[in-house]
């Protein structure tokens, strides 16, 4: 155990925890927008998987990680439009249509990978950027300020999302549509337009999250997300629909994952026990779901398609 409490290992654990939490954070923030407007998008994992493959493939072909991220973004945007069409225009049952998107993404990303790539080949990962001054702070600098641009942007997205949701007209419309779509509609807010917008944000962020996941790991494999998209959805509940809460949840997962991997690498605990440790965040999330369900209220119109006069 003592090997764990060395400066280098502790710093590395925190630093990688932050990297691990990025895909969950991005996907969770996107999902928060959707849920605040009353749409539960269960297809996040499928979007992430396709974004991950798209990003991976683009980097494999061009060696340009930013192009990879852009491809992930584009795929996410496209799937966001499709998801919005399914849930908003066709008013499909949200709890199930998302499972369709997930299965499609799971199958399609695997199909494309096997067909276009075949054997896994590693790709470039994001370059680290050491922030001036901040990066030089002992301990803190190494943990937080020697990360890639994606990490900084993902965490900057948290205050930005808070600002958009709480202090802009658009955010007010999102909340209105999520709480009382009839009232919003009667005031001339287009429920469908607002929900399309939040679904596009959600899809785009999920696509980026997937690409960031694959490029950060430098590989792609079948089902690479390993249910992270589903966890991101749960994190929105975990965080009681607030961006800051989503971030805390994402960090919790990132931290436990990073801890387990460090422990495994150092051989502190046997592999088998690490499976038990890895269970902790899921169990904490379930407990958090209970607390949130009893203390906080979900957006009133969540999962309910809007029908004028209906």
């Amino acid at each position, binding site marked *: 155990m003592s090997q764990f409490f060395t400066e280098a290992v502790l710093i590395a654990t925190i630093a990688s925890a932050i990297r691990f939490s990025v895909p969950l954070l991005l996907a969770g923030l996107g999902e928060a927008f959707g849920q605040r407007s009353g749409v*539960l998008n*269960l297809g996040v994992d*499928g979007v992430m998987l396709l974004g991950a493959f798209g990003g991976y493939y683009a980097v494999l072909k061009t060696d340009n990680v930013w192009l990879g991220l852009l491809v992930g973004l584009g795929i996410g945007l496209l799937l966001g439009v499709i998801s919005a069409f*399914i849930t908003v225009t*066709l*008013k*499909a*049952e949200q*709890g*199930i*249509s998302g*499972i*369709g*998107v*997930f*299965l*499609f*993404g*799971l*199958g*399609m990303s*695997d*199909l494309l990978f*096997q*067909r276009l790539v075949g054997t896994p080949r590693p790709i470039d990962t994001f370059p680290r950027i050491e922030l001036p001054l901040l990066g030089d702070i002992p301990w803190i600098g190494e943990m937080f300020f020697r990360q890639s641009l994606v990490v900084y942007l993902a965490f900057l997205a948290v205050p930005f999302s808070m600002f958009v949701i709480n202090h802009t007209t658009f955010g007010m419309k999102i909340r209105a549509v999520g709480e009382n779509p009839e009232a919003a509609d009667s005031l001339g807010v287009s429920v469908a337009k607002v929900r399309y917008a939040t679904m596009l944000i959600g899809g785009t962020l999920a696509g980026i999250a997937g690409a960031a996941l694959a490029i950060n790991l430098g590989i792609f494999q*079948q*089902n690479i997300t*390993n*249910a992270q998209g*589903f*966890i991101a*959805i*749960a994190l929105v*509940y975990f965080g009681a629909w607030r961006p800051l809460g989503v971030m805390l949840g994402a960090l919790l997962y990132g931290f436990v994952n990073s801890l387990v991997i460090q422990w495994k690498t150092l051989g502190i605990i*046997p*592999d*088998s*026990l690490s*499976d*038990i440790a*890895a*269970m902790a965040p*899921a*169990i904490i*999330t*379930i407990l958090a*779901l*209970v607390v949130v*369900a*009893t203390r906080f209220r*979900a957006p009133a119109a969540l999962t309910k*398609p809007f029908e004028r006069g209906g």
Partner: protein
Amino acid sequence: MAGTPSEEGGGLTQRVAGLRVSSKYLAYLVPLGAVLFALLIGTIMLLALDTSPIEGFQALFDGAFGSTDALIETSLKATPLLFVGVGITIAFRANVINIGGEGQMVAGGLLATMAALFLPTWPAFIMLPTVILAGLLGGAIWGAVPGYLKAYFGVNEILSTIMLNVVAVQLMNYLLRDPLIDPAEIERGTRIPQTERLQEGADLPLLFGSDRLHIGPLLAIIAAILAYILLWRTPLGYRLRAVGQNQDAARYAGIPVKRTITLALTLSGALCGLAGAVLVFGSEGHRMVTDGSTAGFTGSAGFNGIVAALFGGLHPIFTIPASFLFGGLLVGGISLQRAVQVPSALILALNGLVVIFVVSTDRYRQRLRDQDARRDALASAGASAVPPAGPDPGGGEP
């Protein structure tokens, strides 16, 4: 989610008179439409992959239904889909969405495996029912937890069942890598996460002298029939459906809503648990094995079972042919891969599209059905006082 042929009573006489599209037909048109839609997308995808669609679909069909062996494989593949599909149906009928089939299958498989490992060697006629019950119990526990949390704390069951999938996979990895691992794997140093060959008394008996076909498919069909009887021929089934249709009305009618919701997910989980047990004791190795993911054990049946259930109109009996069809697609996908080198993942992608198609058209069907009902009401009011004709097929309340 009420797109079943069973729910539209009445309107039988009116339908003969005019040529208008009756919702009755529509209920059957949707699966047909979904198949055509999936075939269309499949064709486009095969063309995009430079493959002859005719050759591809031929290989798929032959692999799934073209020979006795193929039909046996298809039945075996359909078995967990049917168990899960029926389980999902029971939950959905009570308006509870169970996304936790994967975790419940794992929990059922694990408890059944432990029963076979730790109980003394018993003859099959005791051992087999015991392990099957253990599977049922494991799944039931994994379903009861989210059911209880939903009923008594208002926890969204979609999320809790998803999170319990995550817990189940870690639990499985832990148990199969350490306490339950085959000692031979440790000796050899290969450490494949699997148990030793489980006791023979727990093997699912084989049918018709086949060396593959076991009683699993038969058990699943019996489960589907029992679920049908439960849902439409017992007071409990009536309560489940009443809670599903209108919780408030059910509460006023004196139905214990919370207990019914808990029970719906418990039953749903129990059926998924059975699927897990059948996978273990019907496997060729007669052991539980994983590759570190849930799909490594379940073959994603926890999700594909939802597809079968939706396709079967959330009706246990119609879920039987639906499971057979989707089992066939999964088996045929492997031949597809062999024949034209198109990865069988294609089938999973198409399954996803089928789900989207079915749920996207549901709202539209609902609207047409409402129109039908209104027109029927008007018609019967006009014809004055002929009560809606005919007993409806299965939808009739006792």
